[in-house]
Structures are given as structure tokens and as C-alpha cells.
């Protein structure tokens, strides 16, 4: 079934901005969307797939390698290589997935029928150069989380099992969603996400009505509904690919670097990761707006996304991290 269009999602601006930034700058480190049930977190993330400009890959490569930087596996093959255009993968990692499907394992079929020791690539391979989406990421078994952390950090998947020994590139944008009331995310994993946000149920009736209305219209005739938003989708798609092309030309002044650093100091965030993510996200946001320079306004806009989950927070802190960030923004950026 055709997914619900991204541009038809009512409200949820922060979620949309975070996903757009992740598309524009893949090195941002992924997005974590936590929040209320039924607010369309999964819908937005799944809708993303249709907005991604296609990518060029080596034909037949299980890891859809970039023709420019072929992988070990491709270069071992000496048959003539063709380039093809394919959609960017958005891979779902369902909660019931077994480890062998995540990392890849011995191809049972080939082994049983032909006695061949062949590697059957897993979801990490499928997600290479694309997005890996985990719904209910907070409920994922610990051993899979460990595994993901390792691969996300190294960009490589190393498989050593049942006599297969494979190493393949696995660079993907990790996107997670979940409801914190059903269990918190391990702190180690939390820190790996570049951006994080909280999704709330809209409170005003007009917005609620619009959400329900669009949902019902989509139910009735998904294709017609998607057609209605075709223009918006196309516009956004162009905006995303323009922003991506422009990204490297967006200037980051010394003043911006300095103020980003001050902002992180004011909030007492851990490490440099937050600072860099903040600047990167600001740059992507500026690029999305068609600007060639990062401004304080861009920093202020993305600061909650980039820093919210990096604050040293006491578990009983009643003041939301949002309030602290707003205050720091007011102090440092005078906004």
C-alpha cells in the first residue's frame, strides 16, 4: 500500500525538521522520536522513503555500493560492472527480528541444497547508504542494541559465525521511535542519536480534526489521497536535494562555532559530540532554507533537537530539558 505522504502530516514540525536534517546531512547521527501514542511518529518516518532522491549503485551488489567507492565484495567480482539508480533503502527492523537476520548469516538454502557456504546478508547490509528504522527502539533486546551500537559506530558489519567470515560496509542513518512510558532507552544508545525530540498529541481541536480527517480520507482511497499531495511532495523532494547539494557551500563563521560552544557550556553537555551535531544541524537547517550562511537563528532552532538528550539530567528533575535549553538560548544567543 502507498504510504501516507510526508507533506500530509499535520503539525509535528519538529519531527519533520529533524528528519529533513537527517536527509540533508546523513552524518548527523540519526534521529530519535519519543512521545505519545498515536501521534504519527512511524507514519512520518515511513513516509520519508518516498522523498529521498534515488542513488547510484553497482548493479547486483548486495550492499548497494556507490560506484565511485566500490566495496571489497564488488571488486572481488570481475564481471563487468553496471551502474543503476535505485531508491534509497529505508529498512524496518521489527522487534521480533533474530540476530541472524540483522547481521546476516549462512545461507541455509544454499548450504542445504548445494553444500555451499554462502553468506546471506542481513538488514544491516540492506540499510547500507540508507536508513534503518526501529519502532519501539526502547523495547529492543539488549544484545541487538549492543550489536547496532557497534556497527553504527564503526560503519562496518563484521560477521563471524557458522564458518562464514564477512566484513561489509554498513553506514546507515539510525531512526528510532518509542513511547518512554513503556521503558526507557539505555543511556548508551540514547547518546548515539544525533537528534532527539518529543512528540506530543496536538491540543487544539482544529488540528485534531484535520489529523483525523486526513487519516480517514487516506483510508478511503490511498492513491487518490497521495495524488492530492503529489505537488507538495515533489516540491519538498526538490528542496531536500537542493539543500543537500548546497550543504558544503553553507558557511559556518567563527562566531557560530564559538556560540555553539558557549551554548553547550551553558548547558553542561557531555563531550564534543553535541557541539558538532549542533553546528551540523544548524548548517543543514540553513541549507534547507536556501541560505548560504548559518545564523544564530538556525542554531536556536536546532539546539533543542541536538542537545535535549545530552543534558546531564537528574532522574527526578521536574523542569523539562526544553526549558533549560530555552533559557540557555536566551542567555547565549540573546533570543
Amino acid at each position: 500500500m502507498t504510504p501516507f505522504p510526508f507533506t500530509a502530516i499535520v503539525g509535528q514540525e519538529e519531527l519533520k525538521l529533524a528528519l529533513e536534517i537527517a536527509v540533508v546531512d546523513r552524518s548527523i547521527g540519526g534521529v530519535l522520536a519519543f512521545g505519545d501514542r498515536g501521534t504519527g511518529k512511524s507514519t512520518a518516518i515511513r513516509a520519508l522513503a518516498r522523498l529521498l532522491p534515488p542513488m547510484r549503485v553497482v548493479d547486483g551488489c548486495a550492499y548497494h555500493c556507490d560506484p565511485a567507492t566500490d566495496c571489497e565484495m564488488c571488486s572481488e567480482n570481475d564481471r563487468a560492472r553496471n551502474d543503476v539508480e535505485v531508491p534509497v533503502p529505508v529498512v524496518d527492523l521489527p522487534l521480533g527480528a533474530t540476530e541472524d537476520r540483522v547481521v546476516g548469516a549462512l545461507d541455509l538454502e544454499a548450504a542445504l541444497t548445494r553444500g555451499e557456504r554462502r553468506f546471506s546478508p542481513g538488514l544491516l547490509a540492506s540499510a547500507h547508504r540508507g536508513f534503518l528504522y526501529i519502532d519501539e527502539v526502547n523495547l529492543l533486546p539488549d544484545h541487538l542494541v549492543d550489536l547496532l551500537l557497534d556497527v553504527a559506530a564503526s560503519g562496518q558489519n563484521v560477521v563471524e559465525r557458522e564458518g562464514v567470515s564477512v566484513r561489509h560496509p554498513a553506514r546507515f542513518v539510525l531512526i528510532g521511535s518509542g513511547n518512554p512510558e513503556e521503558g526507557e532507552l539505555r543511556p548508551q544508545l540514547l547518546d548515539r542519536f544525533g537528534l532527539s525530540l518529543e512528540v506530543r498529541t496536538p491540543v487544539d481541536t482544529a488540528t485534531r480534526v484535520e489529523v483525523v480527517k486526513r487519516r480517514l480520507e487516506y483510508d478511503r482511497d490511498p492513491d487518490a489521497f497521495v495524488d492530492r499531495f503529489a505537488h507538495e511532495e515533489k516540491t519538498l523532494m526538490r528542496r531536500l536535494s537542493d539543500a543537500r547539494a548546497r550543504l558544503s557551500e553553507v558557511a559556518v563563521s567563527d562566531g557560530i562555532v564559538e556560540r555553539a560552544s558557549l551554548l553547550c557550556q551553558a548547558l553542561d553537555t557531555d563531550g564534543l559530540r553535541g557541539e558538532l551535531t549542533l553546528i551540523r544541524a544548524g548548517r543543514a537547517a540553513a541549507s534547507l532554507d536556501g541560505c548560504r550562511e548559518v545564523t544564530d537563528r538556525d542554531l536556536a532552532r536546532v539546539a533543542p533537537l541536538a542537545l535535549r538528550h545530552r543534558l546531564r539530567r537528574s532522574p527526578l528533575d521536574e523542569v523539562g530539558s526544553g526549558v533549560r535549553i530555552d533559557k540557555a538560548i536566551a542567555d547565549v544567543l540573546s533570543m
Partner: protein
Amino acid sequence: MTPSNDIALAAELLAVDPHRLGGVWLHGASGPVRDRVGLELGAAQDHPMLRLPAHITEDRLLGGLALAETLNAGRAVVQQGLLAEADGGILWVPMAERLEPQTVQPLCAALDRGQTALERDGLSRSYASRFGVIALDEAVGEEARAPDELRDRLAFWIDLADADRGTLIELKKAALAEGPEPVRRDPAQQQRIAASRERLRTVEVDTRALAALCEAAGALGVESLRAMTLAGRAAQVHAALRGSDEVEDADVLVAARLVLGPRATRIPVPEEAENEMPPEAPPSPAEDEAPPADGEGESDSSRSQPSEPLQDRVVEAAESGIPSGLLDRLRSGRSHARSARFTGRARGAHKASSEKGRPAGVRAARPGRDVRLNVVETLRAAAPWQRLRRGTNRVQVRPEDFRVTRYRDREQTCVVFVVDASGSAAMQRLGEAKGAVERVLGDCYARRDQVALIAFRRDGAELVVPPTRSLTRARRCLSGLVGGGTTPLASGLDAARRLAEDLRRKGRTPIVVLMTDGRANVTRDGDKDPARAATDARDSAKALAGLGTPTLFLDTAPRPRPRAQALALEMNATYLPLPYLNAAALSQTVFSIAKQAS
């Protein structure tokens, strides 16, 4: 219309579009009445009705390698899971309150997407799984309800425990008359349902109707957007059943009664009070525009309705859908605390079962008494050797191929705080102790342990934070804690003992951290008699000691006194005077005790 007619109506609506309406949460004790209602709801003619047992394994739920066939054929043969088999039908889920998270999540994903992803046993498939769920919930009293994430996706909530007497009598009579035979719909009705299914694609619903439903949801304290969407869908299906291409007021009223009413968390504010709140009264500009916009296409029926605005009638209709038991609770103002505790318990219990041992990969080993063979992994280990072993067509498996699933079997610890919340002085001390509690909470979080908190004050002890791993929850529960009153120390200790016993039964290791100055002034029965209160406390302390649970006694008195030390001795606890303790040291102490315990 009586509620038993509503059950028939819900059944008919569900028969038209089981997947998009999600299904029914049916709460009530197992028995002929409940089963009768369930059968009636599930009577979806042409569809198969499949049963999903609460402890279904993932391979049966999602599908996987069909072992016998794979071994026989010598190649991978896929076996469909229950979620795929249920496509186009109804899934009957008994004991929904006991569902494990790894079952709930795929079930919810299937309800959302109509698809099930299979990524197991080296297989990667996607199956259509569009079905309706009848979730039977047998939880009694304060026991765990079916998980909220599942209930949120089911349009109809029927609570037999909350039904009024008249309805129950009627249902009992129906059960007597019909017995446990599957319900059959007559051909005319079947035809009507099939026709409605066709018509459903063309049923229009206008903004005014949706606005009325969303407003009514707000008035009843129903905040879930899914509930509002489900109500909108129910209105559409009802219109289709009536043979209409447009949702009219009658459809909206039915949807409000069936979908929104049973979800109420508060009784709508009466009119006088509403007038005092100006922001609520004037409709927002968007709504203002709505009625004229659809005025032309609108049928006359909704226009010629009585002058009372649709909104009010929808709220009234929704109110009439609140089952009488729930209504009583809402009226007495108990609903908030109770429902919060319900959900808390629900999650607590439903988390628990999954954490007895998490799968953590596989290893080569012989299966034994406590070690189960992982057949697929064993097969995979055997596969490369088949040529060498030169068998017939059958796969040859040798002992060295055996693989078993590794479980991380560290017993889960739950730190139970028992806090004196009586009197302003105690609360102030609690404030001082907060740093300590925070630190321990934070460490529990990092260690993936659980925390719970019992507060005692006035006439008893209350489980303020049910066992949870969620800091968000713990934080929220704590913020609602108000102190004051007398000091029923014995009740607090009793509550701790009961919780500790409960945790033990669930295979977890409880650690009790008691924060008090050891002073008691209320007996177990609530009498203000300091002398007897102290005796009671000593008895309770002994009973707690009898459990052998590691216990930490934090003396919160500004100047530690022998009284507290004596009590600590009574309960065999490690005694620590709080004033001399910093947060980090406390946390370390708690976890060193935990280590000794496990």
C-alpha cells in the same frame, strides 16, 4: 438503546471493517456470559477466527522456518505465522492482560500497517495481515489490564465488570438461550454487511462531524488521536450500514457512544461551569467556517435536527456510553488515581515476564534440562557439512551441531523505596533525601534495574511508583506525592513485605530501602496510640526480616537515635544514618547489597 443492543451493534460494525476498527477490548471474568459476548462480537461470517494464546512463541506468531518440512525436503521451507494466517479474519486473544511485549508489538504493528514483517531464521518476507482483534481481558480488581498500546488501537471497549444489572441479566439470558454455539448471521444480514463493505469506500464525513467527535473526546478526557480516528471510522461504517453515503448526526452519536464513552477519564464539565471558561465557549475560526462550507451538500436531516447543537448531543451520547461502574468511579473522583495505577501495574506486570531471561545470542552446547535446543541454529550449523556426511535426501544432524539459545539470566533487581511521607518534618527530610533517591534511581536506570516506591502517611501505605524501569513514570508518580498526617510505620513495612513477596514470585530480587526516623504513632488499624504503634512496627519489621530480603535502613532523623537502630536490628537491616551519607555512597551501598543478594 440498551447496552446489550450496543454489543450487537458493535459486532455488526466490526463485521463490516474489522481491520480498520481494530476490534474489541472485552473485559470481564471468563465464563459463559463473556464467551457469548465474545462469540457475538467475532461473528464475522466468512472470516476464520484464530486463537492467539498469550504465551505464543515468536516463530508461531511471525512465522519462520518450517522445520519438519525443511528437514525432509533438504531446503528451506517457510511456515506462515499466526498474524499472516489471520489475514481477513478475526484474532481471538484470550488472557490479553498477560500478553508479552514481544507479542504485543507485532500485533500492534499489524493493526497499524496491515502487514507483518518477518525477519527471522534467515528469512525476509512481508505478509498481509489485516484482521480485527477480540482481546479478552480477565484482570480482576487492581490487576494488570491488557496493555494500553493494544487497547488504544481497538475501537470498542466493553467492560462487563462495569455493566449495570439490567444489561447483565439480559446477557445471561442470551447465554442461556444460545449456549456456546458459534453465532451465525442470517443471509439478509450477511448481505447487508457485504453491501456496507462496498459502500464504505464512498461514505463522506464532513468536518463538522469530526469536530463534534474531537470536542466530545476532549470533554471526556480522551486524548488519544487514535481514539478520535476510530470514532470517525465507526461513524463512517455506521453510515454505510444504514445505506447512506454520508455521515449524518445519528452516525456520529453512535460512534461517540460506542467508541468514546467507554474511554472516558472524566465526566464532561456541566454547562454552568463551562460558561465560566470563556476560552472553551467560542468555537475557533476554523470551525466557524466549517458549517457553511458543507451546508450545500449537507442533507436536510442534520439541519432539521432539534436546535441543540450537535456538539452537545455528541457529548451526551458519549456520556451514555460510559458503563455504569466507570461512571461511579468517575463521579467519586477515584478514576484518576485508579486508572493511573491500573496502567502502572499493567506495564509492570507485562514487562516482568519478558525479563526473566532475555535471549542473548546462541552458543554450541548440548541441550539439557534447562537448556533448550535452538533448532534453526542447529540446522544452520549442520548445513555446510551435508555433502561430507553424504546422507540421503534427509539432513543429517550430529551432536556437534547442537546450538542452544543463550539467555542473559541475571536476575532483575527491583529497589523498593519505603518512604515516610508523614508530617511536614518528614517531608522536609524526604526533600533532603531526594538527592540520594535520585542517585539510586539514576544508577538503577543505567543498570536496567527497576525501582518502586511506597509512601506511608496518615491511615496507610500507598504504592506511589509501581515497579518500573521508566524514569519518566517514576518522576511523574513522585511529583504527585503529597505528604502530611500521622505515621503508620507498620503499614509501610507490611506493604513493603507484600511487594517484596510479589516481586520474588515474578523471579526478581527485591531490595528494600527504608527511609524513616523509626518513629511510629499510628497502629496498623489506624488508631493513634504511639505505644501500640511502636509494637506493631516491631512486629512488621520482624515479618519483613523473615522474608530474608536485603534491607537498608536509612535513618532520616537529624540526630540519629537508638530507637531507629533497634528497629533496624529487628528487621535485620543494614543501618545507615542519612546525615553522614552522600548520594554516591548510598547508591554504592544499595548495589553492593544487591550484588550480595543475587
